[in-house]
């Protein structure tokens, strides 16, 4: 009895030590990714102006091509006014924009996914976009209630390699999970899309239909699936650390700033290179379109290192 007991004890002790050693190595490795590129930081900033100035013309032109964006705009007939507004405004600046709808509308074109469940719809849209990407390597997912400045999105990802897994936007936490907020837009690299297509097959870790009683928002479901693929959310910000992705409207942000920073309202409020705003009415969006792409003071030159041309057949930019 004693003899058996001591073997048992030895086994327990060895097993315990083994578990400790394994978990020690796991925490050591969890901060790195075996794919070679490290994403230890959760803050993602654009390339610096100094670095851009050092680039050759051919490098510049390579980057301009590589940085083209496929926009996935997730609409429903209920959002028809915003759908039409997105169609008439910012989506024209995507290299390819595709509207994905829950059901078709007679008035506007879209890929009809015939799917009422938002998460299932998002998965279908992602699959469709991946299959129809052509040579586009960056993907932007948004609802039509978001307004995006695609040129600034391109600037943010300009020096990032899309064959690496990127998942960028305004990050929030749900318990331990960092996720990108849907309402301020989600940026995915080609590699991330590829991994998503793979993990979609895993019905345990990334189910299409969740628990009918407890609806998890799509943004956290996406983050969970991506986490299992080794892809982690990163907060997009400018060189000064100001967030580039906003779910609030410009006037709401300005108004907040007037309360918090009355001496320096605009400086403290929002980035010059902001990418998204949300919660704006149709007429506010028309004004924003004019404000971004047209209204300016004569004689100011930003000395940008790249050129993005205005879209064809458009009169409001």
């Amino acid at each position, binding site marked *: 009895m004693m003899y058996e007991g001591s073997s048992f004890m030895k086994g327990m002790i060895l097993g315990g030590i083994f578990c400790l050693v394994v978990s020690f190595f796991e925490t050591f490795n969890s901060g790195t990714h075996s794919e070679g590129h490290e994403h230890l930081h959760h803050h993602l900033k654009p390339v610096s102006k100094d670095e851009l100035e050092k680039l050759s013309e051919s490098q510049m032109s390579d980057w301009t091509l590589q940085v083209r964006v496929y926009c996935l705009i997730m609409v429903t007939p209920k959002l028809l006014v915003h759908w039409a507004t997105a169609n*008439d405004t910012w989506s024209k600046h995507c290299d390819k924009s595709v509207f994905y709808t829950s059901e078709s509308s007679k008035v506007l074109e879209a890929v009809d996914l015939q799917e009422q469940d938002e998460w299932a719809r998002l998965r279908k849209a992602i699959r469709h976009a991946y299959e129809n990407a052509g040579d586009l390597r960056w993907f932007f997912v948004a609802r039509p209630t978001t307004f995006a*400045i695609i*040129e*600034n999105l*391109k*600037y943010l990802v300009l020096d990032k390699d899309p064959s690496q897994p990127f998942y960028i936007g305004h990050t929030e936490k749900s318990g331990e999970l960092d996720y990108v907020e849907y309402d301020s837009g989600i940026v995915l690299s080609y590699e991330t899309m590829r991994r998503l297509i793979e993990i979609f097959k895993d019905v345990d870790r990334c189910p299409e239909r969740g628990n009918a009683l407890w609806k998890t928002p799509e943004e956290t479901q996406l983050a969970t699936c991506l986490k299992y693929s080794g892809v982690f959310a990163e907060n997009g910000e400018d060189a000064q650390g100001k967030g580039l992705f906003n779910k609030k409207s*410009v*006037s709401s942000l*300005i*108004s907040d*700033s*007037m309360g918090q920073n009355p001496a320096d*309202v*605009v400086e403290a*409020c*929002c980035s*010059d*290179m*902001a990418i998204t705003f949300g919660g704006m009415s*149709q*007429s*506010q969006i*028309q*004004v*924003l*379109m*004019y*404000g*971004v*792409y*047209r*209204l*300016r*003071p*004569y*004689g*100011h030159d*930003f000395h*940008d*290192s*790249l*050129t*993005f*041309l*205005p879209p064809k057949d458009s*009169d*409001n*930019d």
Partner: protein
Amino acid sequence: MTQPQHLKSRTQHIRATWGRRCNIVLYMSSEASDFPTVGLNVSEGRNQLYWKTIRAFQHIHMHHLDDADWFLKADDDTFVVLENLRYGLSKHNTEEPLYFGRRFKPFVAQGYMSGGAGYVLSKEALRRFVKGFADGLCSHDTNIEDIGLGKCMETMKVQLGDSRDVLGRQTFHPYPPHYYLTRQLPRPRPWYLLYEHYHPVEGPGCCSDLAISFHYIDAVQMHTLEYYTYHLHPYGYKYRFNPDERSDNRNNN
């Protein structure tokens, strides 16, 4: 043009944004203050506005005639892009009797410039306005400031300039941007476009990229327009409208 009750709610936002881009900015009020405001010998109220305007221009004529080339009158809820005003005026001669703004048709035979959108007088126009009152050729015969000034301009043979850009788009605006920019189906003129001298355009063609003013702008909108005009920028975007390139092309033809 402002008043004591507006300094905190309106005028301070002008001082924080476009006011500082003027070569000289004078905040005209019924009372002098440390804001700083100039105290004119008038009382407040819409029916005193023309008196206030007359006194303001008399003050400028007496104290600042040689300190500037052009003289802009704006309200404390007008947003102005000074660089675009300077650009628009650059081809004109301030020794000529000219005034610029948003041209309205009725009430004055030659028309007049909207008060709210802001208007700008050449040095000669300012001299003639002040002389008109000094010589009794102009008088305070109305409470409506922009019409009154317009009538005096006509009497003193000051010409109305065309402030539209090379594509015929307006630069001075008596209402906020959303009134004009929102796309509309072809329709009869809405009430706020009834006075227009030039045929109004609704939708994106309404407004020049190099807009000079918008009116009825509250404090939040003031900072919002400041952000749009001077800060928010689409990286690398090549603007469609390049007035200098256009004039170069014309010279080459």
